[in-house]
């Protein structure tokens, strides 16, 4: 008995140490990265250098991205002699990987960032600021659309990244379902959208599909609906103002598509894996608000002539200014790690990927819009849907708040809206009070900046 008691205690102690070790693993660690590591190579000596590029997942799969990018990067190697080690990273992992790289100082040389993270990542000081000299090295700041540049870092500071792919939200609608329901034109106001949605919600089909379980999607729509009411999510000093009456009304309007209007399926509250596109492309939903969806819709078998794209509705028809904002400026930016030991080679890769021919190839493949103005006139971007989205990007899109706490805002408010959708799906009433309570709580959880 004594032996088994001793061994069980030893076992228990070992188990305890092993299990408790996990507890603190969330604390992470950190080490000094040993300075900025600015060792720009002299021009001409870049040949033979190898740089690492973390690309975000833009295609139908990580492998698809590798297939798209590898020939282009080979072209770059042929031109410059600089080799590129490519790693494609899914969106779910990208921010954490960047964070880990920032902490350890062991990051890639060039990387993709979601443009809404620009100010948050800029605040870490890990990214190379794109000052006049750096922009000159890649052909000048004026080559890029101003809206895209505005979403590359905090106002008044040098951008933390360079725009690579641009996107904007549009309202996608199923032409046949609209015709069958006797609706001649797509909605221009939210009232019209709800009215049309009710006509279209019948026999297992729904007027609209929303991605209720996806925090980022929720934020993008809540942002636009609040902007149309003249409200923002942060004040001028960068302090969170989540629970203003306008923001409460904006979130409620969005959640009401399931809760009150019932033009979106309850099940949409669970969607977080782009099921919205599947529902739209397979005719389960007649409308969706999405950014640059042509490639994904096509992948589900729907042809471009079967759907139309118009700007997302506004509160009143023909609204202008903030009231006329119909999309956030969506897109992917290219950043260079400040402590890259191959900074000059990294800038060369940025120059290559933002060159006009490459912009045409890459954006053409991914169905996005080139942020480089010269490339926008290419026939590939003159399709009816992309022309609408380009128009939105040029005249009725606004960047998400470019504040250091932007990523926290996405998580906290995005989750609050996700929970409100869950309430709506469960049949619980979503009231102004419950929305306000959720937003106030999210606001109070924001760390002081």
């Amino acid at each position: 008995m004594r032996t088994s008691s001793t061994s069980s205690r030893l076992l228990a102690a070992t188990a305890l140490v092993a299990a408790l070790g996990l507890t603190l693993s969330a604390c992470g660690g950190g080490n000094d990265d040993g300075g900025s590591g600015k060792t720009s190579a002299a021009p001409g000596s870049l040949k033979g250098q190898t740089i690492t590029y973390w690309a975000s997942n833009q295609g139908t799969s990580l492998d698809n991205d590798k297939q798209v990018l590898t020939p282009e990067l080979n072209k770059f190697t042929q031109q410059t002699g600089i080799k590129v080690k490519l790693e494609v990273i899914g969106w779910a992992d990208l921010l954490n990987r960047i964070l880990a790289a920032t902490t350890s100082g062991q990051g890639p040389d060039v990387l993709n960032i979601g443009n809404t993270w620009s100010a948050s990542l800029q605040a870490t000081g890990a990214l190379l600021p794109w000052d006049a000299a750096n922009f000159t090295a890649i052909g000048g700041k004026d080559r890029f659309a101003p809206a895209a540049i505005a979403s590359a870092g905090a106002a008044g500071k040098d951008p933390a990244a360079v725009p690579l792919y641009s996107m904007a939200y549009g309202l996608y609608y199923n032409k046949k379902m609209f015709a069958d329901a006797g609706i001649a034109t797509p909605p221009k106001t939210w009232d019209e959208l709800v009215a049309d949605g009710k006509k279209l919600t019948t026999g297992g089909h729904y007027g609209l599909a929303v991605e209720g379980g996806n925090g980022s999607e929720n934020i993008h729509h809540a942002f636009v609906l609040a902007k149309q009411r003249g409200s923002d999510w942060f004040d001028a000093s960068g302090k969170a103002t989540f629970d203003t009456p306008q923001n409460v009304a904006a979130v409620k309007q969005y959640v009401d598509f399931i809760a009150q209007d019932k033009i979106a399926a309850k099940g949409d509250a669970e969607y977080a894996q782009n099921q919205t596109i599947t529902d739209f492309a397979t005719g389960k939903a007649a409308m969706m608000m999405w950014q640059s969806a042509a490639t994904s819709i096509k992948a589900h078998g729907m042809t471009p002539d079967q759907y139309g794209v118009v700007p997302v509705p506004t509160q009143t028809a023909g609204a202008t200014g903030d009231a006329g904002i119909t999309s956030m400026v969506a897109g992917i930016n290219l950043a260079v790690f400040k402590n890259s030991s191959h900074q000059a080679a990294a800038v060369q890769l940025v120059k290559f990927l933002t060159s006009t021919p490459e912009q045409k190839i890459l954006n053409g493949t991914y169905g996005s819009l080139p942020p480089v103005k010269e490339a926008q006139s290419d026939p590939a971007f003159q399709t009816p849907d992309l022309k609408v989205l380009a128009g939105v990007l040029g005249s009725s899109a606004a960047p998400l708040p470019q504040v250091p706490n932007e990523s926290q805002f996405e998580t906290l408010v995005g989750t609050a809206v996700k929970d409100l959708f869950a309430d709506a799906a469960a049949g619980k009433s979503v009231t102004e009070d419950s929305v306000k309570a959720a937003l106030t709580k999210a606001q109070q959880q924001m760390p002081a900046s």
Partner: protein
Amino acid sequence: MTATAPPRSAPEAGPPSGKKPAAGGRLRPRIPVRLRQLGLPYLLLFPALILELLIHLIPMVFGIIISFKGLTQFFIRDWGSAPWSGLDNYRLAVKFNQPVGEALLHSFWVTCGFTILSVGFCWLIGTAAAILMQDAFRGRALMRAVFLVPYALPVYTAVITWTFMFQQDTGLVNHVLHDQLHLTSDKPFWLIGPNSFWALVIVSVWKGWPFAFLCLMAGLQNIPRELYEAAAMDGAGVWQQIRKITMPSLRPVNQVLILVLFLWTFNDFNTPYVMFGQSAPHAADLISIHIYQSSFITWNFGSGSAMSVLLLLFLLLVTAVYLLLTSRKRGDADA
């Protein structure tokens, strides 16, 4: 890994001429017996100590230091430069009438409920299965193998399969409950809302019970068959045999098993993360995910570390009390 004696004495270690090597034919370096007795155990422990230091203790110390700092994204490149914040992070975590503390307390209670249910069911099912598998019968080996499948599967694959099955519209669970058995009037949601808690418990039990089964099966092998035979001769029924022979004999195994299951379940991160992503539904907001979110999603590492330290203290306390109680019981029993 084998540890060898200090090489300094190795050249002197040749066998004296004319003498046969010691029994077993091994040549031993001449280390004073006393030194060998004193030093060798420590030498053998040394690699483990170094690894323990590197893997657990140093990160823990860093974690504790960070919990006293205002570490946000502004300082993550050089966390040492983050300003000291004293006990602010701890105060924030335990102000239960404020949103941060309230959310932490909520996730703590959710985790307690989840752990009790999950460990309880894992143990119950594991014990029942181990007892049923104790006697040899045709197909026992196959059954055992099948029972261990959930334990052998990669966590990610298993949990993601469960999330597909739990989907409201197209999932297998609702298909069976609603379409086939007509047990529910509507298709319930499992991955959002209050049911998400039960979905989490189900997956955790499914994943965890084979470990209990494995441990208890090994424990049962050590119980002499004669005890059962003698008990049967004395007229003890199956239930009495389980109560009087099986359960007391399994006590040492159970003591470790329940402790390990408790710690693993309380700290479980993989299951909720794969099921719900970075932000779990309110009802299933386990403390591990909650701390992860505080640290890595809202980038408030100081506050997240303070929460981790509080969790560590809680688990240490529970474990100490548990070990004290179970060893005292043993002491009473032995006496």
